[in-house]
C-alpha cells in the first residue's frame, strides 16, 4: 500500500473536505444513490475551475439533489420547490461577479420548475445548471416524474408510465442554452471536465447527469444499483456534438452522452447593459 494511503487511513481527511460542511456528514443520500457522485464531481470541478471560491454560490431547490446546497461549504441557498433558477437569476443580476451554480433534481427543475428553466435559457442567464436525473421523485418515495421513461414503474404508475419523458438536452437547446452536455455518474471524469467548462463559460450552461435511484426507481423496475451502472456502461454511447433532437434516452438502443452544444451568444446581463443602460 502506498504511503499516502496509509496516512489517509490515520486521519479521515478527504481532498474535498475543505469544500464540505463536514459537520453535516453523514449525508441523507441512500447507499447506491448517484447524487453524491455528481456532487463530488461538482466540488472537484469547482476546485479545478480556477474560480475564486468566495465567488461561487450554490442554489438548489427541493428533493434529494436539492440537499447538496446544505453540504457545500460555500455560500449556499436551499430554496423552494422548483424555484432555484429564478432565485439564482436574482442573485446573478444583483451581483454579476458571482458564479452561480444551480444543483437540483429532474423533478424540481423540469416539472414544477420547468417554466423557469426554459426562460433562464432563453434569456441566456449566465448560470450553470446541473440536473441529477434519477428518472423519478426520490425524496417522496418514487413517484413518476417528467423524465420517467414510458412504461416504467413508479409508485404513481404501478402498471407502467403512460406518459412520454422530456428529452432534456433538446428542451435546453430549443430554449437557447449555450452549453449542453449529458453524462452519467459512471463518467465522472467527463462529467467533471464538463462542469469545469460550463463554469468557465459565459451564458446558460446545462449538464444532465444520469444517476441511479436503487431504493425507489430501481426497486420497482428490477434494477439494482450495479445493474444501473452496467446499463450506463453497456448502453452509454459517447457522441459529442450529437443533434439534441437525437438524444432521447432509450435504454434498449443506447444512451447518447457527451457535449452536444457549445456556442456563444450574448448573455442576459451583456444585452441589458448594451440596451437598457445606455439610454
Amino acid at each position, binding site marked *: 500500500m502506498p504511503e499516502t494511503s496509509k496516512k489517509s487511513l490515520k486521519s479521515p481527511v478527504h481532498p474535498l473536505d475543505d469544500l464540505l*460542511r463536514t*459537520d*453535516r456528514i453523514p449525508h441523507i443520500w441512500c447507499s447506491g444513490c448517484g447524487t453524491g457522485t455528481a456532487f463530488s464531481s461538482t466540488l472537484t470541478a469547482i476546485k479545478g475551475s480556477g474560480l475564486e471560491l*468566495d*465567488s461561487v*454560490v450554490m*442554489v438548489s431547490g*427541493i428533493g434529494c439533489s436539492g440537499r447538496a*446546497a*446544505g453540504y457545500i*461549504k*460555500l*455560500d*449556499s*441557498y*436551499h*430554496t*423552494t420547490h422548483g*424555484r432555484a*433558477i*429564478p*432565485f*439564482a*437569476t*436574482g*442573485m*446573478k*443580476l*444583483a*451581483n454579476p*461577479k*458571482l458564479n452561480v451554480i444551480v444543483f437540483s433534481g429532474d423533478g424540481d427543475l423540469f416539472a414544477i420548475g420547468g*417554466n*423557469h428553466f426554459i*426562460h433562464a435559457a432563453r434569456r441566456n442567464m449566465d448560470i450553470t445548471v446541473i440536473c441529477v436525473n434519477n428518472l423519478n421523485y426520490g425524496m417522496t418515495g418514487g413517484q413518476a416524474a417528467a423524465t420517467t421513461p414510458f412504461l416504467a414503474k413508479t409508485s404513481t404508475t404501478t402498471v407502467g408510465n403512460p406518459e412520454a419523458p422530456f428529452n432534456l438536452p433538446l428542451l435546453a437547446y430549443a430554449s437557447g442554452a449555450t452549453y449542453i452536455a449529458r453524462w452519467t455518474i459512471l463518467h465522472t471524469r467527463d462529467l467533471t471536465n464538463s462542469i469545469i467548462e460550463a463554469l468557465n463559460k459565459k451564458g446558460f450552461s446545462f449538464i444532465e447527469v444520469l444517476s441511479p435511484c436503487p431504493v425507489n426507481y430501481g426497486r420497482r423496475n428490477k434494477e439494482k444499483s450495479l445493474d444501473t451502472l452496467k446499463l450506463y456502461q453497456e448502453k452509454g454511447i459517447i457522441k459529442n456534438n450529437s443533434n439534441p433532437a437525437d438524444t432521447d434516452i432509450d435504454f434498449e438502443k443506447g444512451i447518447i452522452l457527451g457535449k452536444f452544444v457549445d456556442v456563444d451568444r450574448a448573455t442576459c446581463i451583456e444585452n*441589458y447593459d448594451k440596451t*437598457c*443602460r445606455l*439610454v
Partner: protein
Amino acid sequence: MKPAVLTGAHYITGDEACAEGALAAGCKFFGGYPITPATEVAERMSERLPEVGGTFIQMEDEIAAMASILGASCAGVKSMTATSGPGFSLMMENIGLGIVTETPCVVVNVQRAGPSTGLPTMGAQADMMQAKWGSHGDYEIIALAPSSPQEIFYQTITAFNLSETYRLPVLIMTDEIVGHMSEKVVIPDAKDINILSRITPKGRKDNFKPFKPGPNGIAPMPAAGDGYKVHFTGLTHDEKGYPVMTVEAQAIMMDHLMNKIRNNLDKIILTEEYRMDDAEIVIVSYGVSTRTSLAAVDEARKLGIKAGLFRLITVWPFPEEQIRQIAKRVKGFITVELNLGQIHYEVQRCAGYRVPSYLVGHPGGTIISPDEVIKVLKEAF
C-alpha cells in the same frame, strides 16, 4: 447616472410614487410581472433602475418574480416586486421562504377586487387577511397601508427600512384607487430621507452563524460572495442555518421569528388619530378608506356626533393594545374597509365585545361613500 431621489414636486400616480419611494430608499433590484393595477410600478422601475445603477427584470411569472427578489437580496441588494391579487397568491410560498430565511425585501400589492380574476381595474382591500395568513405556517409579518400617492412614497421608504431592520419581507397593501390616483407628491432632498440598511457582520468569517441574533435581536446578514460561506434553507434551522428536524429546533426558530416582531411593536406600529380627543364613536380605517373616513368624521361632527378616526398605517402587526385601550373609553367602533369584513373582526376581537363594533364594508370595485358611514353612525348609536 441620474439621481435616485427626484427632489421636487411632482404630479404622479400612486404606483409611480411607489417606484420613486423605492429608489429613494436605495432599492437596486426589481423582479416583476405585469398585472393590473400594479404594472405601472414595474414600468417606472424598468425605466429608472438602469438610470441609477440598478437592474430591472421582467420574470416569467410572479412565483419567479418573488424568488428573484429574494435571490437579489441575498446578494446584498435592496429589492422589491409589485403585484395584485392573483400574483400575490402566487408569491405566497416564496414570501414564506423570505420569512424563514429572514431575507429583507418589499412586496407591493396594489389590491383589486377578487376572488380570482375579479375586477382587475377596480380597487378593493380584500387581501388584508391574506397578507397576514396567506403563506403556510405561523409567522409575523409587517404590512403598511398608504392612502395617497404622497403616503405611498414615504411608506415605501418605511417598508424598506423596516424590512432591513427586522430582516423580513414587508408588504405594502395599497389598492387600485390609490395606485392609479394622480396627486401632488413632494420628494424631499436626499439628505432629509432617513435610510436604514441591514447590519452586515464584521470580524471572523469562519463558523459564522447567519441566524444568531445580535444585541438588537436581529442577526447580521452577509451577502453571497462576502466570504462567510452561509447556508440558507427553507427547512427549520439553527443559528448556523443548518437544518434541524426536531421539535425543539422548531420551537426556538419560531420563537425568534415571532418575537423579533412582537418585542418591537412600539417601534413598528404606526397609527394616526383624527379628532379622537373627545370621540365617543371611533372609526377604524386604513388605506383608501381612510379618505372616506376623514370625510365621515367631519360630517358626523357637523351633525353633533362625536366621531373620531383611528387610522392604521401599519395594519400588521395589528395595534391590539391601542384598540383595547380605546375600547375602555368609547361607545363603539365602526371599521370602514373595502371588503366584507377582515380588519373589522380584528377590531371586534381586541375591543373584546366591551362595546359594539360595526362594519361598513363593500364587496369592492369602488370607494365607500362617507354617507354610508354616516348612515351606520346614525342607526347604530
